[in-house]
Structure formats: C-alpha cells, structure tokens
C-alpha cells in the first residue's frame, strides 16, 4: 500500500482547532468560530486533495496509509497509531468534512447569541477529528478510539445546554447506551485478537479464511452490538430521541449525517467478517428491518419536529443497516443511501433549526403552520429534502432507497419477500410522517402564539441549507450514474454470483412510488383537510399513545434495567455497610464486648482480687494433682 505523509492533517487540523479553542478559553471568543470553520474547511480540502490523488491512481493502488507511531506494543499485541484511506473512507471523509463545514458555517449564525459559542465550535471540531479518526483508523482499536471519541463529542454536544437537567440526563443516557455498544466493540476486538492474533483490518481480512465460523459469528455479533449502540438501532435505540436536546446543528451533523451512520461504516468495513458469518449477517438484516419499522412508527406520532426527524433518521439508518446486511451487493447501496441521507437529512435538520430559529425555539409542530409564506427559502430547501427522503424521482432518495428495496426483494426466498415488503411498507410510512411534518409546519393555518415572529434566517444559515438541498437533489443521480459508487467501492467487497432478479427495477420503483403515494395521500387526508389542533389531542387510539411514548422503549429500559439496577445498587450499598463492614466492626465489637464483660471482675476490692488469686492457686494445684496422678 502506498504510504502518505499528509493523511494525518485531516485529523490534526480540526483537533488542533478544538485544542486551541478549549485551551485559549474566553480569549478566543471573538475569532474561535472562524478558526474552527476554517480548520474544518481546510480538512475538507485536504480530503478533496486526497480524492484527486486517489482518482489519479489505478484501482488497486488507491488505498494509502500513514504510520504515525507505535501506540501499544505488548507481546504479540501490537497496535500502531496509523491511518488508512481507501475508497470507503474517502466517502466518509468528504461527507464528514463537507457536511461538517457547512454546519460550522450554519452554526456561526445559529449560535451567535449563545455566550458559549466558542466552546460549541471547539466541540464540533473535536467531533470532526474523532469521526475522521473513526473512519481513518487502520485497525479496530484505532477505530475504537474514534468510536468513543465521537461518543464523547456527542455527549458534550447533546449536553451543551446542560444547565437544563433534562438535557444533562439526555447526554448521560446517550453516553451510557453508547458505552454498551462500545462494550460490544471491545468484545469483538478481544475475540479477534484471541483467535486471529491481530486486530488490524488487513490482518483480520487475511485471517478470516482460516478462522472458524463460530469465532467469526461471535465477532460479527459483537460488531453488530457496537453498531446498534452507535447507530441507534434496536435494541439500543432509545437515546437518539433524547439526543435532540442538543443544538440543532449538532442533530444535523452528529445525529443525522455522520456519527449515527458509524455503525453502517463498521459493518461495511467488516464486510469480510459478515460475509463469512451468515448468522451474524442475517441478524444484521433483522435488526435493520426492525429498526426501520420501529423508527417509522415512532415518526408518525411525534409532534416535536426534531424528534420526528430523529425517528426518521433511526428508520433510514435501519435501511442502511439492512442494506449492509444483504451482503456484497448491499454494501455499496447502504453507503449510497448513507451519503444521500447525509445530504437530505442534514438539510432537513438545518431547516428545522431555521424554523426553530424563527419561532423562538418552539419545536412543537402543532404550534407551527403556514410558515411557507414567512420562510420561503427554508420551505424550499426542506421541501427538496422531503422529496428526496420520499424517494421521488429524480431526487437522491429515489436512487439510494429503491436500490435497497430492490436488493432486499432480490436477496432470495422468503427472506427476500419479507424484507422487500418491510422496506416497501417503511417507505410508505416514511411518506406519511414526512408529509405530516411538511403539512404541519409549512401549510395550513398559522397556530403559533402572538410572541412568535417567524422570519427567514440570515444567509449564513440558508446558504448551507441550499447547498445541502442541491446535494439532496443531485447526489443520487451522480452517485448511481453509471454505477459510479458501486464501481468505486467494488475493490473492497468480494463479489459473488448475482442473485436472480425477483422483481425488475422498474417494478420495484413502481411499487415504492405507489406506497409513497398512498402514504402522502393518507397524510393529506388526515392533516391537510382537517383542522390541526394546536394541542395534541389526548383521545387517541392506544397505538398512537404507544407510538408517542417511543413504543415504550424508555419504559422497557426503566423497568428491566434501570429500576432493578437502582434497587441492586441500593441493596449493595446497604449490604456493604451492614454485612461486610458490619463483620469488620463486629470483630471490633466482640473485642470490646468481651473486654467490658471481663471488666466486671475488676471490682477494685483487693479481697476479690485475692479470691481470684486463690482460685488460680486452686486451679494450679488441681492441675498438678491431675498431672501427677
């Protein structure tokens, strides 16, 4: 592999920005945001430069590496701090730095009134650096560093306004649930080292052939656990909704476009393991399918615009995971959907941020309505993103999502049909809840309070939205034109024979569009023709209630993990005090007690001492008597 010396700048630039902003403190308040944005952008340009270099090389020579230093080396456990950039990484690098830079620009304006804007930018830069490390690391352990690094950045950013207790709790929840996922990644690394003796991607890839399926399945399942944690997949999905506590640019960058897709990256990166472990792969698909429906159902009931979008994110990542679980044919489509989703979902989140910005940070869509007139640019960019997520041709989602649906149908047998139906149904529900968001927010009558003065956002905010909207329109076509992305990534994935086509692309597209149309129509009937209550109605069906409560995910976690855990903690604290320390203190008390009992003998009367001496003498003589017998 070609070695490079410039790769490290990708990470070093934003990392330096973060360090400077945090260490300089208030002194950098004036220029901190500009420095951070500039560093993020320069990282993007380094990425573009790397891409141009890569394009100039032949397919097999494209991956490059850079060894920085020897990180950990104990016995046979040797980990270098080294980076690797290949066709897959570069996609992520450009997405992260590109969307990241746009969101930096957006935040300059969005956060301009926040006294801690500098800190916000420091965290954003920290996130960019960590995320880049995640996708550039050349071993699972290096990836792990980035993996936890983005977790930390996510924690810091969700809890950016942690003076509100609920937000602080949300950030803690996200971190802890992510840690459960991280534990899976640790297990995967440990199994890999114990069975293969290496944890670098290339080493593991080579070792797959002579490793047992059981071990590979173990690694695969553990990687899947990691992915579910980071990508908010079932059953570790509950943190994502609460993570919307963070400022909206954070939701756009971390909880829509980049970090939450790390799970997809991990699975795609580990394709050699999953390809060799069908059980694990099957489970990936199942998790993807469950989450897809799970997110979609939650999305239908949410009145909070960010939480609706978050549910949508969860559902869309479900698509990607499902795609990645479909094996070699699916990886590229999963990545493609990831990229297009990065554009349109980030755009929509920024749109939502723009709406909130104009509406005094109101997030309840029932308090919106008719914003189309007041925020034309936001409406336009959001609308384009909306069309993209629906999968209307020729917008981006059409290309990426239909590919996944098609692949799902063609994955063969009953599995294919079930998956195909699930993805189709998901597309329909997506259409329903996204239309609902559109209608509630931008059309109909205004339902806001008098204090709200909706207005269009400044250009610093709408410009990134516009760029992302362009991305949502064109990216799908560009990436799939001539199978560009598929060919680009193909050297990484081993191709097996193509499945027979169950349904032709045209049929799938037709079915998907039909589902979307039905979803849109239902939404129109339900929300556009009827008056929308500005307060959520309470006389709703049990299903709506459950969906509003995120399908009881929090209740489940509370009942099954949190409350028993708290009870256990309380019991153990008491036990430690009473039993273990009690035993220790008991020893002391026995000594003390026997002492005070014996103290009674010390009457102070000389005669009683004499009596005791006499008794002692008797005992002594008795002993002699017995001995000499």
């Amino acid at each position, binding site marked *: 592999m070609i070695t490079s010396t410039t790769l490290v700048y990708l990470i070093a630039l934003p990392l330096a920005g973060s360090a400077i902003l945090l260490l300089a403190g208030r002194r950098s308040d004036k220029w901190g945001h500009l420095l951070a944005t500039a560093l993020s952008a320069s990282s993007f340009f380094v990425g573009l430069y790397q891409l141009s270099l890569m394009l100039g090389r032949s397919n097999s020579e494209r991956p490059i590496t850079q060894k920085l230093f020897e990180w950990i080396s104990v016995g046979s456990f040797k980990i270098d701090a080294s980076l690797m950039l290949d066709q897959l990484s570069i996609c992520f690098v450009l997405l992260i730095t590109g969307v990241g830079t746009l969101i930096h620009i957006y935040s300059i304006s969005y956060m301009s009134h926040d006294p801690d804007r500098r800190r916000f930018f420091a965290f954003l830069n920290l996130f960019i650096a960590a995320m880049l490390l995640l996708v550039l690391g050349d071993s699972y352990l290096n990836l792990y560093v980035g993996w936890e690094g983005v977790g930390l950045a996510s924690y810091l950013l969700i809890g950016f306004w942690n003076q509100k207790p609920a937000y602080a709790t949300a950030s803690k929840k996200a971190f802890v649930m992510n840690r459960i996922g991280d534990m899976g990644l640790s297990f995967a690394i440990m199994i890999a080292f114990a*069975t293969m003796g290496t944890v670098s991607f290339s080493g593991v890839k080579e070792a797959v052939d002579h490793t*047992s399926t059981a*071990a590979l399945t173990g690694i695969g399942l553990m990687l899947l656990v990691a992915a579910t944690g980071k990508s908010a997949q079932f059953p570790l999905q509950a943190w994502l909704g609460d993570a919307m506590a963070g400022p909206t640019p954070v939701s756009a960058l971390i909880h829509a476009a980049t970090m939450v897709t790390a799970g997809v990256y991990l699975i795609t990166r580990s394709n050699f393991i999953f390809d060799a472990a069908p059980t694990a792969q099957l489970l990936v698909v199942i998790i993807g399918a469950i989450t897809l429906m799970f997110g979609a159902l939650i999305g239908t009931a949410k009145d909070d615009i960010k939480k609706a979008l978050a549910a949508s994110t969860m559902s869309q990542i479900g698509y990607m995971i499902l795609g990645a679980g479909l094996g070699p044919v699916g990886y590229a489509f999963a990545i493609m959907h990831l990229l297009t989703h990065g554009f349109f979902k980030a755009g929509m989140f920024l749109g939502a941020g723009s709406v909130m910005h104009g509406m005094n940070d109101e997030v309840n869509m029932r308090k919106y309505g008719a914003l189309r007139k007041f925020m034309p640019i936001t409406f336009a960019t959001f609308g384009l993103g909306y069309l993209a997520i629906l999968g209307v041709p020729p917008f981006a989602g059409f290309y990426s999502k239909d590919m996944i649906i098609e692949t799902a149908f063609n994955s063969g047998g009953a599995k294919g049909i079930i998956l195909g139906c699930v993805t189709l149904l998901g597309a329909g529900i997506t259409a329903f809840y996204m239309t609902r968001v559109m209608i509630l927010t931008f059309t109909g009558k205004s339902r806001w309070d008098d204090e709200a003065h909706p207005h269009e956002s400044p250009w610093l905010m709408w410009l990134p939205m516009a760029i992302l909207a362009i991305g949502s329109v064109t990216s799908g076509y560009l990436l799939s034109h001539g199978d560009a992305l598929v060919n680009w990534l193909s050297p990484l994935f081993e191709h097996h024979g193509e499945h027979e086509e169950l349904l032709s692309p045209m049929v799938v597209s037709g079915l998907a569009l039909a589902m979307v149309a039905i979803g849109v129509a239902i939404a129109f009937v339900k929300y556009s023709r009827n008056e929308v209550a500005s307060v959520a109605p309470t006389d709703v069906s049990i299903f709506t209630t459950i969906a509003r409560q995120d399908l009881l995910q929090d209740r489940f976690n509370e009942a099954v993990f949190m409350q028993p855990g708290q009870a256990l903690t309380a019991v153990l604290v008491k036990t430690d005090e009473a039993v273990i320390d009690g035993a220790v203190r008991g020893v002391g008390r026995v000594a003390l007690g026997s002492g005070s009992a014996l103290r009674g003998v010390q009457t102070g009367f000389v005669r009683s001492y004499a009596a005791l001496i006499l008794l002692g003498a008797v005992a002594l003589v008795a002993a002699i008597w017995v001995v000499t017998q």
Partner: protein
Amino acid sequence: MNWLTLLMALPLLGSVVVAGLPKGNEKLVKQVALASTLIVMGATIAMAVSFQRDNVELQFVEKYSWIPSFGINYALGVDGLALVLILMSTILAPVVVLAGWNESHGGRWSVKVFYILILVLETMMIGVFAATDVFLFYVIFEAMLIPVYFLIGGYGTGERSAAAVKFLIYSLFGGLLMLASIIALYVMSGAQGGHTFDLAALSQLQMSSMTQNLLFLGFFIAFAIKAPLWPLHTWLPDAADSATPGTSVLLLGVLDKVGTFGMIRYCLTLFPEASKTFTPMILVLALISIIYGAILAIGQRDLKRLIAFTSISHFGFITLGIFAMTSQGYSGAALYMFNHGFSTAALFLVGGWMISRRGSSTISDFGGLQRITPVMAWMFFLAGMSSLALPGMSSFVSEFLVLVGTFTRYPVHAIIATFGIVLAALYILIPVQKALHGPTTPGNENLSDLNLREKIAIAPVIAIIVVLGFYPAPLLNVINPAATHVIAQLGFSDPVPTSGGK
C-alpha cells in the same frame, strides 16, 4: 552511584530541614517541602534515564549488612515495574504538596509536622518499592502506616480518628499475617542453605505445596487488604472520606499500589505454585471487586467515598491483569498502577478543591458548577474521563491491555470485567451530571475557580494522563521486558491465536 539510597535520603533530609525551620513561618515550611519533593522528582527522573530498558535483572542494586546476626540486609534494587512505581510516587509527591497547599491548616498539629510526615512518607514510598530484602520490605511496609495514620488522624475531617484507627488495625492485621509468613520463610531458609531474608534466595526455597499455600495466603491477604480487594475493602472508603485530598492521593495512588506491587514481587516470585493454585479464586475476587466497586460507587452520595469505590473497581482490574498470567495482562496491570495513580490523583485533588470551596462533600450539594467554575469543572470532567478509561486517556491503554490479556486465557472473566466499563460510565457521569451540570443550585453561586497554584498543580497530572494515552511507549518499553521475564519465570507463555478452533 547509590541512586536509590540517595532518593530515600533526599526527602528525609528535607524533613530534617523542615523540622529545623522557625515555627511561625508556615510559608517557608511549605516552600522547603515543595522544593524537597521537586528535587526528589528530578533525581528520580535522572535515575530513570539511566535505566537499561532491556535488562530484566534488578538494577541500581545496593546491599549492605544491616543486622548480621539474622542475615538481614539493607538491600535495594529496581526492575521496570518498581522503577515505574517509584517514578509515579515521586511525581505525585510535589503535586500533592502544591495542590494541598492549605490542607495542613486546621489539623491537630502544626503545619510543620504535616510536611515532615509527608516527606518521611515519601522516603518510605520509595523504599517499599525498592527493597529487595524481605525483612526490609516488611519494616517499611509497616512503618508506612505510621505517617499515614497521623496524616489521617491529625489532619483529616469528620470522624478522622475512627477512620485512622480502622485503617491502622486493618493494615496491621494483614501485616501480621505477612510477618508470620516471613518468619516461616526465614526459618525454612535456615534448613536450606543458611538463614536469609534475601528475596532472590528465598524464591529458590523448596517447600511442600501445603506450606506454600499457607505462606502465600499470609502474603496475599496482607496485599489484598492493602490493594484493597473485595471483601477486605471497607477501610478504604472511610479512610478516603476522612483524609485530606492530598493524603488520599498518596493513600490510594501510592500506598495501595504496594498491595498490587507486592502481589507481583512477592506472591508470584516466592510462591509460583501457590499462585497458580489460587489464581481461580483470586480472579473471582478481582471480578467481584470490579463490579461491586463500580455498583457501590454508583450508589454513593459522598464524592470522596465515590472516588474510593471507583478505586476498588480499578484495583480489581489490576489484580485481574496480574493473575491473568499473560504479558498483555501483566503490562496492562503495571501500566494501570501508574495511570491509576494519576487519574485518582486528579479526581481527588479536584474533588478536594470542590469540597473545600463548597464546604460539603455530598454530591447533591453541588450543582451547575460548569457555569460558575468552568476550569475546575473541566478538570474534574477530564479526571472522570480518565477514570472511565476513555480512549485517548492513559487509563484506556492499560484497561484494554488488561482485558485483552485476560481474554486470551480467561475469556469469561474478561467478558464479565468488561461490563465494568459500562458501570464506569455511570459512576462518573452521575456525579458529573449532579455536580457540574444542571442549574446552579443555592450555595454554589459564589464558588471561585481554580487559582494559578491549583492550575499549576493539576496541569502536569492531566498532561501525563493525556500524553500517555496517546503515547504510552516510554512506560511500556520499561515494563515489557519485566513482564515477559516474570511471566516466563512462572512458566507461562502468551496463548497463541486459536483461530476459533479451526
């Protein structure tokens, strides 16, 4: 050059100078104490530079006859592990002096006595890691209790006398068992080539497995109390609760390491067979310590007790690494000892500043500190991140090495231990949320942020934590040869990749 004796003499000399200073001038006392510890630190670093990394034999060896009639020698020497721990102790000492500039006020005795105790303790901290004569080790091991006893009982808070007595009696109990074992070793050595207390000679003794098991237990219980391992841990929260932050740092950061250090240096070396016999039991205790310490930490309402319980969890990891008998586990454990010293130091020092400012150590009394005292809050957060072994912090490297090393030989143990990292997230983030986040609660509005002295004190600690997180090689290079040597001596070699049975 007798480096080790020099190192031990310097703080002692400092304490003599401190003792001779005029009584009224407290500032001068502190400055002299700080200067002494800094000189010791410098000397240690100079010594470490001349350490030969690839030499697995003891280095800087010194040996003088002390009590000839019993064959007791004043014998010193260090290997990689001891060097690292001495380095840690001598770096922590000036940090503690500087960080706890005012914690000697309000004690039972004068400021002078406080620093004399600290300096005497530093001498012993160096000696306990450097001793290669078992008797000398025992003497220092027990003598260390005395300054700590007075530091807790004289300068602590709350029920300091009770905590000090509990600490002392617990430790003496363990020490007594160890003394019995040492005497037994001495007696046996007489029958096998002459009475001696020399560690190397004693490790060659032939003994029945029953004898070995019993003597091993004598040593191990002493070290398990020191470490502390579940269920011999209950002295630690009380002691940490009552001691001043600086004392707690030395207590948890250095003194407790004597326990884990002793397990390696004495238990493994003297009783290899018994170590193997007891390994399953010890591993279970280590696991219980990890999980139990973490859960108890989650349940604590008092900041100092919480930190103490996190240490119990961490010591579980160290013990796990030691007895996993792999080079990764051993190196990880050794590195963990070093790292734990610093991450606990950071937690205790910052926590101590928070407590002294607020006047309460109950976590729920704090709130919203991040807005009021951002630097202090950040330092606490970073210390917490180090404690939960976030990648990029030095403790991550050691914790992961322990887990990987354990997994290759004892997969189930490693899996259970890994659950500790989730609990770690909880026990750090809960106090972080309660104390640093949320609205600023009454009583916290006027807290002052760290002053320059405190920043200077904490900066090197954080720097070491972060730098070693990214570049642990300087330490690993010193530890690794010793690790491979010890593991090989015990007749173990790292498990080879299994390919999952294929």
